């Protein structure tokens, strides 16, 4: 009887341990890629103006520029110049270029002759404070829409910076904004071509 009870406790313990270990293995998913999409067929992309949810006024423009250069530097796709994107937006008459509708994207793709359109949101950009510690942070999310069907084929987010252990311990303000912008954008581009 005693042995049976002990075995029962042991079983419970092992089960809890397995549950804990499985939880530790879980990862936060910040990338969606349409498994049916052939990303090799995307040759030219247009980057729409990014939506800015941060306090910094030029954050969206800044990150869009860096993203455009980094994406071009990757060498796999050609990125339409921003002036050409603006011309396309005006020609199609997109009401809200930050979040165009499916039909607008399809029409836009036909006018400027691109294979995909990238929209983005800057969720956070600038300095964050917690008590006496401060550091720079950037968080952005991107979506790629294929213009023939108007379907979202890729969605990702990337965050860098923020107050870490060393910032709390020693201060210093974290990494410069330019450095973490570069890191975040490179991370996002790497995720696209992963």
């Amino acid at each position, binding site marked *: 009887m005693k042995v049976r009870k002990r075995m029962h406790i042991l079983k419970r313990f092992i089960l809890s341990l397995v549950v804990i270990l499985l939880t530790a293995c879980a990862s936060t998913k910040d990338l969606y890629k349409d498994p049916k999409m052939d990303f090799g067929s995307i040759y030219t992309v247009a980057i729409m103006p990014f939506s800015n949810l941060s306090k910094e006024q030029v954050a969206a423009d800044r990150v869009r520029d860096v993203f455009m250069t980094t994406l071009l530097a990757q060498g796999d796709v050609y990125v339409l110049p921003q002036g050409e994107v*603006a011309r396309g937006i005006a020609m199609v008459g997109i009401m809200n270029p930050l979040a165009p509708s499916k039909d607008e994207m399809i029409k836009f793709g036909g006018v400027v002759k691109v294979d995909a359109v990238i929209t983005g949101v800057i969720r956070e950009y600038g300095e964050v404070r917690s008590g006496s510690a401060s550091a720079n942070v950037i968080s952005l999310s991107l979506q790629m829409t294929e213009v023939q069907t108007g379907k979202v084929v890729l969605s990702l987010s990337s965050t860098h910076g923020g107050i870490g252990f060393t910032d709390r311990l020693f201060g210093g303000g974290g990494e410069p904004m330019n450095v973490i912008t570069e890191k975040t954008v490179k991370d996002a581009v790497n995720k696209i071509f992963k």
Partner: protein
Amino acid sequence: MALVIACVICGTACSTLTRPAIEAAPGGGNKLRFAVLPMVNMSGQRAPLKEMRQSLMRGLVAEGRVIFDDEDMERFMVRHRMRYMGGIDIVTAQALRKEAGVDAVLITTLEQYADTRPPAIALTARLVATGDMPIILWMETVGMSGEDVPGLLGLGLINDIARLQVKAFARLTGSLAKFLAGGTGAESGRSDRRFKPKTFYSSSFIRPGRKYTIAVAPFLNRSERNDADDFLALHVISQLTKVGIFEVIDPGAVREKLLFFRFVMQEGLSIRQADLIHNSLQADFILTGKVMEYQDVGGTPQVEFNVLVFERKNKKIVWTSWSANKGDDGVFFFDRGWIRTAAAIASKMTQAVVRDMAARGAIQDGQLPEEKSSPRGPWQLDRVD
């Protein structure tokens, strides 16, 4: 009839080929007759512009240069209703050559003038050839602060703006004299690693030994500093003239075309607009960009910008880069290497961009540029709007 047509064709060809840059050989620089345009003040501060211009002209006369008479220049400006002094358009360049017999025009821009302790001054001067196409022959930018070289116990500090001004003008006139004495104005050497672009894309677009014509379209200004777009464009132009590959068309001529075509560039140049500028100015490339940050007053100076180059042949981007730096980047001990003016940082950053562009854009032996650099897909086709 055939003879007449042939003459007309030849005449047209000659008018495009006889570039003033070719006519005005650097060796014959001492015989050049040039006009000095009134200084343009973009510093946002009051500055003794007339005195500065007179001082510059005195310096040039003392070196034996032939300067177009000031009163005659004023009469010419009234006759041609010249209001814009920041550049020279094609019509004015032709009139200056034909009517006034002026070979080149010296255009000076004041970027920063801080009569404080320590003072700071930043100037840009360029010599533009008159004639059929206003090509920049020589250009120099100078950015100085009174505490650039503090020296031992602060003995090297300059607290008087007049002294700094003399020093800045001496550097400008010295560089001009060197060019007129037979120099090419080209500079070589390695750019400071600290100021290299953070991210860039380059395709192979420069054939070795060939010279290209480039037009610099206005930059977009997203910074809080007024006229930062103009400063940065001037810094880029200055570096383009020094790299020895490009013949740079004066921004005044580009401005004239933009006004003529009534372009509104809220987000930058579109391909159609770039095409029109390419064709009207016979430029091989158009360079444009965006200034995100240009902080030259208070605190550590900071500059951030991106540059974009369009190619005429393929109607595509051949270079794009993003640069961001602060005056204290890479400074660890005793403020050594600290740069105190935004103009000096911008100069170093643009130098790094242009030199990188010239080096990485060069077509290597055996490289097929079309295959290497062309984007895939429909972009290769001529677009019909």
